[in-house]
């Protein structure tokens, strides 16, 4: 089987000179199927089995739980807002299909745009396709609101990959986290699509000042036909009224208004923990994210120092604000901060990006801690930004080289001092 597949691949290999783009494309897919037959030349004769593809793919693997839950939760939130199937396991097929209809276009557009640009540059520069976008492409759908218009998504991905990465020289050279750059682009260019209370639940429109459910188009009709054939519940026509008291607000905006009491009026701590709340697609379920984080730590893909120090930083700042205690949000006990918002997702997948984080072990402690501190400051004190992690991480991305500079300089000074002592001794 393997041999015939190899033969097939060799048969369809396009000419490198005549069509460089096609060849790059081919090379990308070929190396995806087969690890290449390159052998060591000079230097070490055996190499570790780990390569960048494997490294990146394991992050994507860790994200799969978030994808699964995120997809389902899109549907769950939609139906809960309409007052239907309010139990988590009611209407499973409808919620899952609804989620898939929402997330698949996001996923496809992200990859078509992002990989397209990657392929173009790989062909232009004449190197293989680099794996960086495997992770960015898997992360971007998870940090966007489910109803984000696809053209905005395409613009943001293009911006992030083009300006954020390729302009700096490709994978490994970027200063800012690509996935967050895509999100921050939407955040500042099209703020109404990614902030406020109206965007976090899919398929709820505002018609004449009142919220109603979306109309279910032809694609839902196709599934309705299947479901009715199987004797299951169907989507129907749509345009249903939302439940009484619907606001769509996330715990964070509630906390800003009235502290922890106000939050718990709408969401229970358990709901926030397990993630059956509105939010960006993949960031709501804390246990699943922590599971992914543990997987990354255990496989040594991501650095545990950044994660631990970020928790410490957030806890430290949370305690400080508890002591200050002026606004209702400041009074929210520091440990409840971990229940709300996307802290864990940012910690596990965003802050630990090795390219944009600090590179030295000491630097990583400082880097993570400061992200924790700044993130909580933005979350609690800044009215304009309901969640702080995106901005905190991008901010610290910029400072990571500076942190590293001082850590390395300390090493240089230590060595210089030692050399001087040695000279004085002789």
């Amino acid at each position, binding site marked *: 089987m393997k041999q015939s597949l190899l033969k097939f691949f060799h048969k369809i290999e396009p000419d490198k000179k005549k069509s460089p783009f096609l060849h790059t494309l081919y090379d990308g897919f070929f190396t995806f199927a087969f690890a290449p037959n390159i052998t060591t030349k000079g230097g070490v004769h055996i190499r570790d*089995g*780990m390569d960048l593809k494997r490294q990146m793919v394991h992050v994507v693997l860790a994200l799969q739980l978030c994808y699964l839950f995120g997809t389902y939760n899109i549907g769950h939130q939609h139906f809960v807002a309409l007052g239907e199937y309010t139990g988590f396991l009611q209407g499973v097929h409808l919620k899952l299909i609804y989620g898939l209809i929402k997330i698949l276009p996001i996923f496809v557009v992200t990859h078509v745009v992002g990989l397209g640009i990657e392929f173009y540059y790989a062909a232009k520069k004449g190197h293989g396709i680099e794996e960086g976008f495997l992770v960015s492409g898997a992360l971007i759908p998870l940090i966007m609101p489910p109803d984000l218009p696809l053209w905005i998504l395409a613009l943001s991905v293009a911006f992030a990959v083009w300006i954020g990465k390729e302009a700096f020289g490709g994978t490994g050279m970027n200063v800012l986290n690509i996935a967050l750059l895509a999100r921050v682009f939407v955040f500042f260019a099209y703020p109404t699509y990614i902030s406020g209370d109206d965007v976090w639940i899919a398929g709820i429109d505002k018609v004449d000042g009142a919220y109603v459910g979306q109309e279910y188009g032809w694609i839902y009709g196709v599934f309705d036909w299947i479901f009715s054939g199987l004797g299951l519940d169907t989507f129907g026509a749509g345009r249903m009224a939302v439940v009484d008291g619907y606001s769509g607000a996330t715990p964070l905006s509630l906390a800003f208004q009235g502290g922890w009491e106000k939050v718990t009026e709408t969401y229970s701590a358990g709901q926030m923990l397990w993630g059956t709340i509105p939010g960006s697609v993949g960031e709501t379920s804390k246990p699943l994210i922590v599971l992914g984080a543990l997987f990354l730590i255990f*496989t040594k893909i991501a650095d545990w120092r950044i994660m631990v120090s970020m928790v410490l930083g957030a806890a430290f700042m949370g305690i400080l604000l508890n002591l200050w205690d002026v606004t209702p949000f400041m009074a929210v006990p520091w440990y409840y901060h971990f229940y709300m918002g996307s802290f864990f997702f940012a910690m596990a997948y965003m802050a630990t990006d090795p390219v944009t984080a600090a590179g030295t072990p000491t630097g990583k402690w400082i880097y993570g801690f400061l992200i924790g501190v700044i993130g909580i400051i933005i979350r609690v004190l800044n009215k304009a930004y309901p969640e702080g992690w995106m901005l905190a991480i991008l901010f610290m991305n910029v400072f990571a080289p500076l942190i590293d500079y001082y850590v390395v300089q300390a090493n240089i000074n230590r060595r210089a001092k030692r050399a001087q002592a040695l000279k004085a001794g002789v």
Partner: protein
Amino acid sequence: MKNTASKAIFTLLCCLPMNFILAQTEAGNTGSSYFTYTLIALAVIIFLFIVIQVADNLISIEARQLGVAGGNSFSLFPKWSEIFSSRKPAYLNGEKVTVLKQGHDILLEGGAEKHIKGIAQVATFAIQPANFIGVSPIPKLEVEVGQEVKAGDILYADKKRPYLKWAAPVSGEIVAINRGEKRAIAEIVIMADKTIQYRQFPRFALETADRAELVAYLMDAGIWPLIRQRPFHLIPDEDTIPRDIFISTFDTAPLAPDLNLVVDGQEVAFQKGLDVLAKLTSGQVHLGLDASSENAPHAAFTQARGVAKHWFSGKHPAGNVGIQIHHIRPIGGADDVVWTVGVQEVITIGKLFTEQKYDASRVVVLSGAELEQPQYVQTWQGANLGDLVKGNLKTEKVRIISGDVLSGVKKDTSSFLNFFDDQVSVILEGDYFALFGWLLPTLNVPSVSPTFPSALLKDTTFRADTNTHGEKRAFVVTGNYEEVLPMDIYPQMLFKSILTGDFERMEGLGIYELAEEDVALCEFVCVSKQPIQEILRKGLETMRAQA
């Protein structure tokens, strides 16, 4: 100090369950009272700690008064070392051990049985000028093809430094002088006699002679190239006096020879070699000893006289002399010169003084999974590799390496063992395509990454091949070089500074302390498949040109 810290942590751990109880009673209360409870809990912990500490002291005082041996072992607190560090072997007798946490042992199949099989049937031997860095590629030849030489006769001298002379390792006829690129001399090949004839040297009075006389004597005997100098890993100049001389008595590289076996029976020559080296340095001769194996190192090492001994315990590269220098007395700069000598080279030096001959015999380990019979053999410097592995190869598609798999050099059956190498590794060539190689948890791939199940199964051995398991990429991952380099150095920053040609940073980040073999493991683990050893050599050459 450390003990107190361990006590405090232990007490904290003991009190942890209490925290949970407190937390439960707190449930339902507001946040502020949680603080109060935490404070109370802390106070209780401190109180308990004081009580236990007082009781602990009273017990040890009582024990001392009763005259019980080892009064400290009655402590209520388990000692830090008792919990975490592995039990130190008995042969150490409480000597200080430098424990190196970072590193990685690549366990390969094809280790040799610890027994020397006798003299290998090797017909030709060669000295290769290209084995030395900083030596002109076309040396001044003292011999010609067809000439008969004795072991110890001078074959050639360096053009730039004519006092540097190389001696013939065996006696016999010069059968070929092979030239490489740009007419550089690649090999001077000697067809060995059945019994080796030695050039007899005059007896040298080591005790009364001064250093200059000794240096001249060593130069004439072709001993000088056996010594290497750091920084830069070169043959030293004639007039440099090294600050210290370092010798590692164990090799931790994959399938490396056991030097205890090598030194067995050569104790006198080894000690004599140490005595000679001691006369050459203004400082001391330092021996690095292995503290991680179960059995004590050979008495020739542990009982060596006139040297400073340092125990090291850890995975590869703990046995590398560069790592040991870093932990004994690190190199301070370009002008801070130290020398390093291998164990077999020390024996060769010693034999010049005990037997008045240049004895370049070497114990060489033939290792690797592609050999029918991995074994130790007795031969001489620069033995022909084809002869060494003749009739011993399992398949044809192999790579024959002079040295270990990390920093050795690719050779073929017509070429020769490199000057300093005492190991031949034979591994499979890996020019195959692996279906979904980047995803599957393959078993037979050595790796430091826990994404491979083999990382969980300790003592798994691998039949490794030369496949790179991926393509070259830019530096992406951080922190994994540090995990295999037990030095206070930021390797990735250093390599980047070499690539950008930043002299000051290279110097500041410690390039002088490194040689290729020290960073070989960094190259092995590199996720981006960068040629780390090549980068380091480039940096060292840049710095040497500057100096």
